[in-house]
C-alpha cells in the first residue's frame, strides 16, 4: 500500500502544485517560479525512488492501485508501473524541472497561469503513462490536449492561432476515432467473452475477427500516428513547434510525441496482433518514409525550430521501425530511442530557446560563428547535435544502432523466406544515418562555424541556470549512451511481453 501510495503521490503532485500556485499572492512571480521548480524537482526525486525500487525481475504491474470507479461499466481506477512505462515516466519527471527552469526568463506574461498549465500537462502526461485502464487512459489522453492548446495559444509566436487550431484539429480528429474504437472494443469484448472491462490486461485477451481488428487498429493507429507523428500526418508538428514557447516545444518533443509510440507499443499492436501483422508492411514503409522524408525536409529548412521538428519525425520513424520489427533487440532499441529523442530534442529546443532569448530570431541564416561568440553554448550544442546524429557513446547511438540491428536481422530472416520489402525498408533506414548527418551538420555548421554573426551583439554566454539545465541533459545522454544496460534491464520483460503478444496469433489459424 505504501508503495502504491508513492506512485499516486507522484502522479497528483502537479495538482498540489496548482493549488499552491493559486494560493500565491499576485505579483510574486519569483515565488511562483521557485514553488514550481521545487514541486517538479520533488516529483523527479520521488520518481527516481520509484525507478530504483522498480524490480526488473517481476513481470506485470508494480506500485499498482486498483479501485472500482464505475463498476457497472467495468471501469476501474487502475494505475501502475511496468516495463513499458517506467522509463517514460522517469523521462517525464526528469524533463519537468528543466522545462520550468528553462522558462524562468522567457515567460513574463501570466506567469501563474503558465506554470499552472505546465503542471496540468505534467499531470496528464504522467497519468497517460501510468494508466492501466483504457477509460482512464483516454481521459488523461484528452486532458493533455487542453493545456497544450493554451500553452501554444497564449504564449506562442505570431502565427500561434493557426498553429493551435491545426494541432487541435489533428489531435481531436484522432481522439474521436479512438473514442469510437474504445467503445467498439469494449463492446465486442463483452459480446465475445461476457466480461465488461476496460483494463488493459483483459483487453489483451479479446479475440476479435480480423476485419474488426483492422478497423480498430486503423482507428487507434490513426490517433497514435498523428501523435508520433508519422508521414503523412505530420504537418501539425513543425507549425506547433515553431509557434510554441520553448517550454511547449520541449514538452511536445520530449514527451508528447512519445505518447504515439507508447500507444502503439502498449495498446495498438498488442491489442490487435493479427491486424498488426496485416498492416506490418505498410507500417514499415511509412516508418521508413518518415525517416527519409523528415530528414530531407530538415535539410532545407531555414527556421531552426523547424529543423529540429522535422528531425523529430525522422527519429521517431526509427522507433516505429524498431517496434514493428518484433525483434527483441529492435524493440529495446525503440524504447531507448524514445528516451534518447526525448533528451536530445528537448535539449536542442531548450538551446534554441536560449539563443532566441538573446537574439529574437529563429532564422538560421542570421547566425554564424557562435563557437567564437558563445563557446560554452557551442560545446553543449555540438554534443546534443552529435547525440542527435547518433554518434557512438551518446544515447542516440544506442537507440539507433539497436533499432537498425533488430530491424535488419528480422528483415533478413524474412528475406530468407522470400519477403523482400522488409529488407528494403531496413536497408533504406540504415542509409538514413547519412541523411541525419547531413542535415544536423548543415545546421551546426551554419550555426556554430563560419564568420561570426548574430543579431543583438554582444552576446552573453550561458549563465549558471542554463548550464545546470544542459549539464543534466548531457549527463543523461552520455549515461544512456555508455551504460544502457541498467535501463534496458528494467524494460526487458515488457519488451518480451510485447514481442510475445504481437507475434502470437490471437485468432487461431491467423497467418504468421
Amino acid at each position, binding site marked *: 500500500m505504501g508503495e502504491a501510495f508513492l506512485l499516486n503521490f507522484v502522479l497528483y503532485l502537479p495538482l498540489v502544485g496548482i493549488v499552491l500556485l493559486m494560493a500565491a499572492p499576485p505579483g510574486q512571480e519569483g515565488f511562483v517560479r521557485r514553488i514550481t521548480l521545487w514541486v517538479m524537482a520533488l516529483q523527479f526525486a520521488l520518481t527516481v525512488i520509484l525507478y530504483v525500487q522498480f524490480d526488473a525481475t517481476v513481470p506485470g504491474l508494480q506500485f499498482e492501485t486498483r479501485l472500482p470507479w464505475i463498476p457497472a461499466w467495468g471501469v476501474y481506477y487502475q494505475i501502475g508501473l511496468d516495463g513499458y512505462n517506467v522509463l517514460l515516466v522517469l523521462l517525464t519527471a526528469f524533463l519537468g524541472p528543466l522545462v520550468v527552469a528553462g522558462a524562468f526568463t522567457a515567460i513574463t506574461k501570466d506567469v501563474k497561469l503558465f506554470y499552472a498549465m505546465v503542471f496540468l500537462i505534467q499531470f496528464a502526461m504522467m497519468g497517460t503513462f501510468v494508466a492501466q485502464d483504457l477509460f482512464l487512459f483516454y481521459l488523461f489522453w484528452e486532458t493533455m490536449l487542453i493545456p497544450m492548446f493554451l500553452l501554444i495559444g497564449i504564449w506562442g509566436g505570431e502565427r500561434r492561432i493557426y498553429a493551435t487550431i*491545426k494541432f487541435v484539429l489533428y489531435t481531436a480528429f484522432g481522439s474521436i476515432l479512438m473514442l469510437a474504437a474504445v467503445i467498439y472494443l469494449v463492446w465486442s469484448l463483452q459480446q465475445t467473452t461476457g466480461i465488461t472491462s476496460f483494463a488493459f490486461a483483459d483487453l489483451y485477451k479479446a479475440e476479435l475477427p480480423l476485419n474488426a481488428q483492422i478497423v480498430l487498429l486503423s482507428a487507434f493507429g490513426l490517433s497514435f500516428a498523428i501523435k508520433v507523428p508519422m508521414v*503523412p500526418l*505530420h*504537418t501539425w508538428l513543425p507549425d506547433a513547434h515553431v509557434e510554441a514557447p520553448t517550454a511547449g516545444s520541449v514538452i511536445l518533443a520530449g514527451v508528447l510525441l512519445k505518447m504515439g509510440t507508447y500507444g502503439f507499443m502498449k495498446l495498438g499492436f498488442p491489442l490487435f496482433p493479427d491486424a498488426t501483422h496485416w498492416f506490418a508492411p505498410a507500417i514499415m514503409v511509412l516508418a521508413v518514409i518518415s525517416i527519409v*522524408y523528415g530528414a*530531407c*525536409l530538415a*535539410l*532545407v529548412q531555414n527556421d531552426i525550430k523547424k529543423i529540429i521538428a522535422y528531425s523529430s519525425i525522422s527519429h521517431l520513424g526509427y522507433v516505429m521501425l524498431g517496434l514493428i520489427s518484433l525483434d*527483441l*533487440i529492435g524493440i*529495446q532499441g525503440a524504447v531507448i530511442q524514445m528516451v534518447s529523442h526525448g533528451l536530445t530534442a528537448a535539449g536542442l529546443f531548450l538551446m534554441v530557446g536560449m539563443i532566441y532569448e538573446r537574439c529574437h530570431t529563429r532564422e538560421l541564416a542570421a547566425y554564424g*560563428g557562435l*563557437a*567564437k561568440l558563445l563557446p560554452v553554448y557551442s560545446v553543449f550544442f555540438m554534443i546534443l547535435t*552529435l547525440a542527435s546524429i547518433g*554518434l*557512438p*557513446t551518446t544515447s542516440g*547511438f*544506442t537507440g539507433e*544502432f*539497436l533499432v*537498425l*540491428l533488430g530491424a*535488419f*536481422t528480422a528483415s*533478413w*530472416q524474412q528475406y530468407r523466406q522470400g519477403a523482400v520489402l522488409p529488407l528494403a525498408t531496413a*536497408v533504406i533506414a*540504415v*542509409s538514413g*544515418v*547519412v541523411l541525419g*548527418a*547531413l542535415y544536423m*551538420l*548543415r545546421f551546426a*555548421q551554419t550555426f*556554430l*562555424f*563560419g*564568420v*561570426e554573426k548574430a543579431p543583438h551583439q554582444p552576446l552573453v554566454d550561458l549563465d549558471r541556470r542554463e548550464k545546470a539545465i544542459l549539464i543534466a541533459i548531457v549527463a543523461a545522454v552520455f549515461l544512456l549512451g*555508455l*551504460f*544502457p*544496460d541498467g535501463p*534496458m*534491464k528494467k524494460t*526487458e520483460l515488457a519488451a*518480451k511481453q510485447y514481442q510475445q503478444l504481437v507475434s502470437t496469433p490471437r485468432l487461431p489459424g491467423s497467418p504468421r
Partner: protein
Amino acid sequence: MSHLLTLIVVLPLAGFALNGLLGNRLGKGFVNAVGCGLPILAFFATLKAWAELEGTGAPIVDIAYAWARIGDRSFEVAFYFDRLAAVMALIVTGVGSVIHIYSTGYMKDDASYARFFAYLNLFLFFMLSLVLGRSLLVLFVGWEGVGLASYLLIGFWFEDPVNARAGKKAFVTNRIGDAGFLLGMFLLWWAFGTLDMDRINLAYANGASPAVSASLVGILLFVGATGKSAQIPLHVWLPDAMAGPTPVSALIHAATMVTAGVYLVARMSGIYAHAPEASMVVAVIGAATAFFAATIAITQTDIKKVLAYSTVSQLGFMFLALGVGAYGVAIFHVMTHAFFKACLFLGAGSVIHALSGEQDIRKMGGLARRIPVTFVTFAVATAAIAGIPPLAGFWSKDEILWNAFASSRGGSPVLWAVAAATALMTAFYMSRLLWLTFFGKSRLDPEVEHHVHESPLSMTGVLVVLAALSAVGGFIAVPHFLEALLPLPATPEALHHYETPLVVTSVVIALLGVAAAAFFFAEGGARAGRVRESLAGVHRVLYNKYFIDELYERLLGRPLTWVSDRVFLRIGDRMLIDGALDGLARLAHRAAGGLSRIQTGHLNLYMFFVLLGIVGTLAWSFRHG
C-alpha cells in the same frame, strides 16, 4: 584479469577531459604535460602489453563491462590484443606521441591551444578503441569517433567557412561508408550472434558452410573501409581534409585514421580469405585508386594536396595488398607509410611554418640551405616513399608489387603493371615536390623571404626521429612477425624466378621517376612547363581531379536539395498534405455557407419547412405503415 588494455584506451580520454575542462585555466605547461604525457604513457603501456603478449603467446582479452544485454545476447565493451593489434597500437601511440610533441611547437601561438590538444587526445582515445576493440561494435565506436575527431580538427580553424565545409564533407562521406559497414556488421550478427571479431574469424575458418556469404559481408565492410580510407568512389573528402592544421593531417589523415580501413580488412581476414569476389573488388579498387590518385598528385600545386593524393594512392597500394591476400604486407606498408608520410607532412608543416603559412609550391624553391634539417628529413622521407633501397618504403612496396604479381589469391601481371606504373609516378611527383620546394632559385614573396627560419627543436627533433624510422623501418619484418596470424599467400613455384628481375625493375622504376623529375624540374621547371602546355587538356582534367567533386555535386548534392525542397516540401507538405487539409476546411466552410442561406430569418418560412416535414413524415409513415 588486469585492465591494462582499458587503461591504454582511457589514458588519452583522461587527457581529453583534463585539457577540455581545465586546459584554458591552467595554462600551457599543464596542457603540454597532459596532452603529450598521457599519450606517451599509453605508448609505454602498449609496450608493456606487448611484452605480456610475447611472454604468454596468447592474445590478451580485457572485458571492460557489458554494454548491453538483451535476451540471451550480449554486447560487451572488450579489448583484444594480439600481434596485429600490437603493431597498430604501437604505431598509433608511437607516431601519435611524437606528433603531439611536434604540435607543441607548431601550434605554439594558436589561441585555442588547449582545445587542439583536447581534440588530439580525443582522437587517440577513439583510434585506440578502434584498433584494440574486440568486437566490431567497439571498433565501430572508435571508427565513428575518429571521424568525429577528424571533423572537429579539420574544422579547427572554423572561422573560415571553407574549413568547416571540408569537415562536414569528410564526416558525411564517411557516413556513407559507415552505412555499408553497419549492414555488413548486422549480417554478421545475424549469422553468428556475436560481433567479436576473433570469433567471427574462427567461425569462418572452421565452418564448413558459413551462414552468410563471405563475399557479401566482405564487400559491405569494404564499403565502410572505402569511406574511412578514402578509396574510390569515396576518396573525395581526404584532399579537402587538408584544411586542418598540419599535425592533424600527419596524424589523422596520413599515419593512423585513414589506415583504419586497411586494419579492418586485415582484422577480418578470416572473411576475406573465404571471399575471392570481395578480395578481387578490394584489389581492383585499391589498384585503381592508387593509379588515379597518383595521376592527380602530379599536377597539384599545394604542398599538402600533393601529399594528400599521395596518401590516397599509398592507401590504394595497401588495399591492393589486402586484395591479393597479403594482409601482413599491407600492415607492413601501413607502418612504413606512417613513418615516412608523417615525416613528410610534418616536414611540410615545418616548411609552411617557415614561410608564414605559404602552401603553394610554385612560390617556394631554394629552401634547402635555409631550413637544412627540414630539407634533409624531407629528402629521406621522399626517397623512402619513392622506393629507393634500402629505405623503409622500398621494402614494403616491393613486397606489395611481388604479391600483386605472384599471389595465388588473385595476383596477376595486370595488377603488377598498374602498381608499377603508380610507383613510377609516385617517385616522379614526390621528387617534383622535393625539387620545387627545396631546389632551384627562390620564388618566395619578398615579404616572406625575410622571415624564413628553421623550426624549433620540438619540431625538428621529431622530424629527425621520423626520418630515421623512414630510413630503417623497412628492416622491421612485420609480415614475418604477423605470419602466424595473417599467413602470406602462397606464390606459385613457377613464378619464383621472376622475383629478382622484379626487384631490380622496381628499383629502376624508382630511380627513373626521380631522374625524370630532376630532368623536368631542373632550371625552374621550364621543360615541365612545355609538357604542361602541350598537354593542356589532360592537365586541366588532372588538376581538377577528374571533376569528380563537381560530378557528385551535380548527381547527388543538388538533386537531393532540389527534391527535398521542391518535391517534398513544396509539393508534398505544402501542396498535398496542407493543401488537402485546407481544402477540407474550405469545403466545410462552403457547405455551411450554402446551408445558412435557408436561414432567412422569416418565421413563416420556417413554419413552411415544418409543414413539409409533417407531410413528409406522414407520407413516409403511410408508405411503410
